[in-house]
């Protein structure tokens, strides 16, 4: 036993230990709540490299409309995504009752409209909710489009996949803005869209 020059630690006591090196320790507790482990650096649990999916931008403020022609409802600007980088987008949708009419959703990339709005809801006089998912593939002067708008909604309270629609003729340029377009079939119906998030997929 070394000659004591400070305080001694006890096996069951709650004590703060300084300057100790543990060799091959076994940690049996599963609660790491109090450990600083943000994984942003070696000092915080080890840095974790970026995943395959990165959020490039979004719009988290709900917008609503009664427009029966296309309106730019949710905009994500200040993007700079190379045209050969795959992009995913997703947003939540809702429609109120008020008339027997559907609600539709579309897309504008930069100043190009690759797809006019497609119906995502039922045509019944009922409140519906659903989502839209965008898939924008790598594209250039040769591979012009093939993007996809997948929409889903509810009918009588039951969710159903409405289907997917091609988005043609994507601009041969970096994506700088991403706009969710919308319209309703009757002005007595209100369509809402919220939580539009745009992601890029890793390419290396």
């Amino acid at each position, binding site marked *: 036993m070394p000659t004591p020059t400070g305080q001694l630690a006890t096996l069951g006591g709650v004590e703060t230990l300084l300057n100790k090196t543990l060799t091959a320790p076994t940690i049996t507790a599963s609660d790491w709540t109090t450990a600083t482990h943000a994984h942003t650096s070696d000092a915080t649990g080890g840095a974790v490299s970026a995943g395959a999916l990165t959020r490039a931008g979004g719009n988290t*403020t709900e917008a609503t409309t009664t*427009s029966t022609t296309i309106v730019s409802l949710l905009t994500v600007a200040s993007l700079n995504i190379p045209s050969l980088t795959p992009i995913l987008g997703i947003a939540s949708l809702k429609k109120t009752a008020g008339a027997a009419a559907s609600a539709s959703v579309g897309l504008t990339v930069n100043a190009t409209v690759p797809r006019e709005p497609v119906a995502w809801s039922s045509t019944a006089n009922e409140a519906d909710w659903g989502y839209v998912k965008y898939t924008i593939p790598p594209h250039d002067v040769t591979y012009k489009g093939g993007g996809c708008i997948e929409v889903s909604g509810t009918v009588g309270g039951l969710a159903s996949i409405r289907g997917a629609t091609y988005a043609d003729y994507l601009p041969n340029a970096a994506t700088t803005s991403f706009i969710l377009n919308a*319209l309703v079939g009757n002005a007595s119906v209100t369509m809402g869209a919220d939580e539009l998030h745009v992601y890029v997929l890793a390419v290396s």
Partner: protein
Amino acid sequence: MLCIFKTPLEPTGTIGGDGLAKVRAKRPAGDVQLGVEAAIGKCHHGPDIQFRKEGAKRLTLATAIVVKRRADGSKVNDTEAASAKAQPKPFFDALYTEEAVTTVTGEIADAALNRVKVSPSLVKPNGSPVTLADFPENFAFGNGTTVGVKVRLKDSAEPVALSWCLLEGPVADAVLADAGRYEALRQLMEE
């Protein structure tokens, strides 16, 4: 006449997908529209009217069957299309596809509709008034009433939440002739 306003936002008490406190317009577009049409007058709901950055347009929809080359998706001219269709179907299908294409053309609508009034409370960071030129390219306002659209205007660092309604011509005339009527509209849209 397109009337543009700032949107009153209030916290929802939840956290948005971006991790920030979520805010939302006090009233959805349908409720705002009911108030506007009861107190001020009719909004334009015609499915052939769309207000865009370039102005109010009267739309014409035309659907036609076009023939495209299967190799690159390009549209063929009428002469080649007729020649292609004269081939036996398996040969046509191997080289071409047919697709229904709807084209939308828009002519600037009448002057009564093609007017814009921006709320005096909506100004750019340098204090100058907002105009349609400050909106992104290809921006569409549609018709009826729209609420809570966040737009990054030209020369602005942060997006601003906007609402707008498209008033029918006679209603717009009445609003422009009576400051009190416009103020009532502004309160419905901004407060």
